[in-house]
């Protein structure tokens, strides 16, 4: 139920068995079915989720009603809307299960309590947010500096096997491309193999 959560935690900062049991008291085991929401626009993001099994996406809907995918998350990834989680203000994003999911949730109150009482949790969160920031910066730089083909390669490096698990139009939305453009990139890359 918490295997991947503690595997990821231990990679960043190793825990004793007692420390794992202490943290376990604060965790919420939760299942979501495909197409169910962890968060919908207008609600406050009350918890962050580690994916034990399955995949999810975050997206926002622009004033013209167009969806824009802002992130995918696979097993072992953490997903949430950080600005809403931190500020406790309504989110502008939606977080949806793309497959049946098993999640481990940490609520805002549990998160605040763990930050106060457990230095290792603070280290874990600092490293998690640092990694997320670096990934965001890399994505921004890739957008500016890489060719479309290289951007797609970078995407596949970041999200291995995702092309088999997620519809192409969602990947196109994430990359800010039309599905036709993405299809051309993919066929170019297949031909060059």
């Amino acid at each position: 139920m918490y295997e991947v959560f503690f595997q990821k935690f231990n990679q960043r900062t190793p825990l004793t068995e007692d420390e794992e049991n202490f943290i376990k008291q604060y965790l919420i085991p939760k299942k979501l079915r495909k197409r169910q929401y962890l968060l919908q626009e207008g609600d406050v993001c009350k918890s962050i989720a580690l994916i034990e099994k399955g995949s999810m996406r975050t997206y926002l809907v622009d004033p013209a009603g167009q969806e824009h995918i802002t992130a995918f998350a696979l097993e072992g990834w953490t997903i949430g809307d950080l600005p809403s989680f931190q500020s406790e203000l309504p989110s502008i994003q939606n977080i949806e299960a793309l497959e049946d999911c098993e999640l481990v949730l940490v609520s805002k109150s549990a998160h605040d309590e763990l930050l106060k009482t457990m230095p290792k949790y603070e280290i874990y969160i600092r490293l998690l947010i640092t990694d997320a920031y670096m990934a965001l910066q890399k994505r921004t730089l890739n957008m500016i500096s890489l060719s479309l083909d290289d951007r797609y390669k970078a995407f596949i490096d970041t999200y291995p096997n995702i092309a088999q698990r997620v519809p192409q139009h969602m990947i196109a939305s994430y990359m800010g491309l039309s599905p036709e453009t993405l299809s051309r990139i993919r066929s170019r890359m297949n031909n060059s193999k």
Partner: protein
Amino acid sequence: MNTKQTIAIIGATGNMGSGISKNLSTGNYRLLLFANELSKLQTLETEILAKNPTADIELSECPTEASWEADVIILALPYPAQQQIAEKIREVANQKIVISIANPLNETYDGLVTAPDTSAAEELQKLLPNSKVVKAFNTVFAADFAQPVIAEKQADAFIAGDDQDALQTASELVVTVGFNPIIAGGLHVSRTLENMSLLLIQLNLKNGYNWLAGWKILHQ
């Protein structure tokens, strides 16, 4: 809230459980219904969908699975079943809201089996130390769910618990079901709420209210 919450109702086919299930099915909730007898559960499902074809309900074969998937768990079970179910859901109910509706009545309905310094809800909290136990729906009768307004007054439904967010969520459930929510206090106030229910049962038997009765606080 826009995000649909999943509610597991354990004991969904009992008098109380079916009333809660039918009324909650009208709200923005996904319901996972569990009961021991599948045939009764299927009858309940048919009844709910006949009245409300868009109800988001699913029958569950396992209380542990239903509780794992849920955000909120309602134990619509008699008090003697509490300990056994608590053991089945303890791990998956971690940090979740668990609603206790039970009144720990004795066999002759003229007293409670719990000691005066505790309550069914507090005993449940001891069994589920990492869950957010809330007392709710114990002060209303099963028939009240079909008719929450009695003698032109909307029945009150009292709530007790120690977690503010959990009390807020329970209040929203009470509103959806059709009663007027009153947060009575911390979980220890369950002792009073369970005794209020005992008194209402005794008055019902004495005065022949036909099990359609409830509490109402009158105030300015």
